[in-house]
């Protein structure tokens, strides 16, 4: 199992090559092979859970090989409590997404399959890279498949949305590239070890001051655009609305998490002083995001757009939790990342299902669905409630922990964020009420078919985890805690070290 992470990362890419070799006319075979590849990747990734040592804060399943020795670039992979759940979330969501695209992707299935599989490889690569160069390679390479998915298989305004998506993220990440280089040369000059290795760089105490602040800004900008935090969120509604269901699910479920993951993995350990110093600003932006996202969601006539804006709100919680630098807040943030991936993923899946039937997503076009398609309505209710944060379902756990953490650090933010949960109830339940309750107002809705077996297969696994995390979150929190504690200790000791250095100077 020495190459487990390499295997998990590149299996989807192998699947892509396999699909490429299939004849175009065999569309059904293509679909099965794609599903098979994602399932195999999921199964292969399971040992990451079963063999993961939850008591250790260290990187596990580590692989390290020289790659570009003259630059100190290594092929360094590993997971810890922070990334392992995100890798599993990715491999878990992919087969479901492929299954959900069975009929909704109507053209160029083969290209779609190849793009999705390459996207999966890129996403896993981002989460398992422990070398800044390698991380950056995956981080950028992954943009292209997503760009194609939005641009080729998206809705009416897809090209605009795709270009907006890629230019936003590219601008942010290119500045991060310069910051990576500055950090690399600074570390090299100070220690005469030139390396992009994250654990090595994270041990180095960067002097506080203007340079650390600028580096922090460059990294934060890249991640804030990805999350997206207010005011960098404007690409998100366009991308989500125009993307096909599969794209939206992956975008919400995994891609947005890369931003929050980046904060945890890079900003906090590399720039602890700046992180602590600017934490109040991050709180402020998070709370604005939480409230603004919720309010804008409330007035959306389009269900998909509503869910998109709800992501801005939910991810605001995550960032709030991470920057509290308390164990509760950060574990909560991690759980909320996974929860949001499941709940919002499921919401997008269900919006996609209803769109396939009616070719509309406007709330006004529905009403009384409960009477026509009860099974769909029940599951939709559960998913909505999980997104609202009903105790007993997954959303509650993360948000509760985040608020617990935030309350210890900044009460005002905690209070305002709590209000955000209330607004979440408002926009989601109000939407649900207009869609599912009441009388059937449109004749077209009377002949809708309920969930098909394939759709059950897509939704049931998600539901399982929605309940699991809600009822017994310890399974997952236990995995993350040691790493989170170690991270907090590292940030605080480094921050103290720089303060001490400033005092002695």
């Amino acid at each position, binding site marked *: 199992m020495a190459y487990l992470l390499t295997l998990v990362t590149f299996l989807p890419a192998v699947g892509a090559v396999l699909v490429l070799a299939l004849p175009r006319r065999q569309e059904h075979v293509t679909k099965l092979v794609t599903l098979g590849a994602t399932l195999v990747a999921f199964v292969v990734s399971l040992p990451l859970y079963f063999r993961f040592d939850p008591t250790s804060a260290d990187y596990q399943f580590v692989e390290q090989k020289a790659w570009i020795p*003259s630059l100190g670039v290594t092929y360094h992979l590993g997971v810890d409590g922070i990334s392992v759940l995100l890798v599993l979330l990715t491999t878990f969501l992919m087969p479901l997404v492929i299954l959900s695209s069975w009929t909704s992707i109507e053209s160029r299935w083969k290209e779609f399959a190849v793009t999705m599989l390459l996207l999966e490889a890129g996403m896993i690569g981002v989460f398992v890279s422990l070398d800044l160069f390698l991380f950056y390679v995956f981080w*950028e*390479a992954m943009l292209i498949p997503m760009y194609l998915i939005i641009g080729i298989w998206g809705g009416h305004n897809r090209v605009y949305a795709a270009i907006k998506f890629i230019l936003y993220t590219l601008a942010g990440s*290119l500045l991060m590239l310069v910051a990576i*280089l500055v950090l690399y*040369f600074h570390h090299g000059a100070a220690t005469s070890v030139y390396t992009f290795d994250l654990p090595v760089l994270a041990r180095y105490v960067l002097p506080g001051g203007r340079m650390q602040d600028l580096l922090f800004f460059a990294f934060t900008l890249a991640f804030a655009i990805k999350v997206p935090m207010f005011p960098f969120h404007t690409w998100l509604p366009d991308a989500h609305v125009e993307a096909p269901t599969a794209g939206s699910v992956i975008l919400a479920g995994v891609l947005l998490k890369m931003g929050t993951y980046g904060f945890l993995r890079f900003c906090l350990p590399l720039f602890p002083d700046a992180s602590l110093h600017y934490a109040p600003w991050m709180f402020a932006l998070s709370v604005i995001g939480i409230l603004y996202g919720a309010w804008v969601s409330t007035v959306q006539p389009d269900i998909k757009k509503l869910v998109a804006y709800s992501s801005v709100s939910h991810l605001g919680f995550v960032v709030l939790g991470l920057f509290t630098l308390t164990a509760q807040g950060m574990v909560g943030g991690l759980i909320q990342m996974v929860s949001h991936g499941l709940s919002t993923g499921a919401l997008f899946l269900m919006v996609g299902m209803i769109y396939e039937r009616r070719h509309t997503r406007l709330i006004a076009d529905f009403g009384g669905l409960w009477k026509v398609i009860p099974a769909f309505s029940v599951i939709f209710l559960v998913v909505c409630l999980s997104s609202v944060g009903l105790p007993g379902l997954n959303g509650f756990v993360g948000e509760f922990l985040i608020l617990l953490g935030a309350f210890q650090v900044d009460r005002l933010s905690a209070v305002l964020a709590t209000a955000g949960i209330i607004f979440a109830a408002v926009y989601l339940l109000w939407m649900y009420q207009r869609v599912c309750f009441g009388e059937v107002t449109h004749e077209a809705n009377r002949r809708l078919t309920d969930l098909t077996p394939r759709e059950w297969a897509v939704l049931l696994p998600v539901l399982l985890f929605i309940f699991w995390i809600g009822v017994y979150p310890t399974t997952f929190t236990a995995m993350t805690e040691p790493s989170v504690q170690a991270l907090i200790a590292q940030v605080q000791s480094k921050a103290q070290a720089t303060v001490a250095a400033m005092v002695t100077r």
Partner: protein
Amino acid sequence: MNPALVLPVVDLRPLLPMLVLAATAAIVIVLDLLPPRERKDHLGFVSALGVVLTLIMTYWMTFSIGGGELRGFRGMVVLDPYALFFNIVIGYATGLVILLSMDYIRREGQEAGEFYILILLSSLGMMLMASAGDLIIVFLGLETMSIALYVLTGFFRHRLEAGEASMKYFLMGAFASGFFLYGIALIFGATGTTNLDRIANAVAAGAGRDPMLAIGFGLLLVGFGFKISSVPFHMWAPDAYEGAPTSITAFIATGSKAAAFASLLRVLLTALRGVPLDWPMLVWGLAAITMTVGNVVALAQQNLKRMLAYSSIAHVGYMLVGVVAGGSLGNGSVLFYLLAYTFTTAGAFGAILLLERDGREAVQLADYGGLATRHPVLAVALSVFLLSLIGIPPTAGFVGKFYLFGAAVKSGYVWLAVIGVLNSAVAAYYYLRLIVFMYMREPEGAPTVMAPSFSGALALAVALWGVVQLGVAPGPLFDLAQAAVIPLLR
């Protein structure tokens, strides 16, 4: 006593790679006169074979001389790792251009043996520039390269724009040569020599304060500025690129640029060493202006050849970033970038020249609507080249930019690196627009068809291999590039 006629012992070894090229050109001239007269395919293959031999010779010499150097003709020609690295770049550029030209010139009804001969001779001039240890040899190489390129640019005589392009290129080039020669004359006046090493010695001995020397170098830089098409000496490039046969456009963009950079860097690093001028700050400004102007103007182009012309101006700006940064990392990254850029650009132009619509080349953006459904493989290849031009990993373009901007950061030019990456973001827009047309638009009007061409496909495959290989495993070639510049930095 009669003075005995003593023939100087001429050491031809420093010329070996060039001699192979010259011999190939001579063979092609002879073969051109022999039957069959109506088909010239075999000439292309012979030329390509000659280029392959030159490359093999270059690799072999790289190994056999190790870190040393061969000097010939009293130091006028230097064959060192630096020249050999450029021979590799120029060799790949020439080989790819010949392969791309073969079916292309027949399709255009302009098949002729001269085409290959001129390419080979131009390539000879380029390699001579890379090996030049004397300003006179630089000029000799420059003229050999340029005159062949002027002819090649106007080779499609039936096209109006070809004549225009050739004329513009020639006139501008003649001006550049004039500046160049005048610069050499002034430097000779100040230092009494045209040999680069001896100029450096004279500068060290005190000639550096002579204003004549500064003016001479200024004029020299103007001449180089024309040849690498940096702003503000770039005006000829878009017209020449548009009017030239597409394979020659690729040659101007890759080979001639590499050669000009080769001698520019050598002059800057050897002769100009110790001159009390703040030339890095001057080049700083040139780099920033060049990439910004190139990218911003490229945004507005509908004609792909023009777009790539402006994009190539922008790429010169990126390479100048490495020149500013200096040191083995900065200069090494310029060399590496030239190699990466050669594969990428030759590939991109190659993909364009394989396509035609309504009996003309597909050079308008609109010609690429829905290309991905009709020619999926070609669309993927072109996309990879475009992504490499943007600098998306894991392609050669990304690694090249990474080295360039890394060198800038290392030397403390962080803001120049920031300008560079912001430019890359701007550039992403116009490259991606072509991908939008290929993948996200439906075809309109007459279909765009691909001209079947074995040699063209082979060229694209080689370029693709280069782009991916340099992107995934850049280590060995970058080390080679860095080792090539270190001796110059003594």
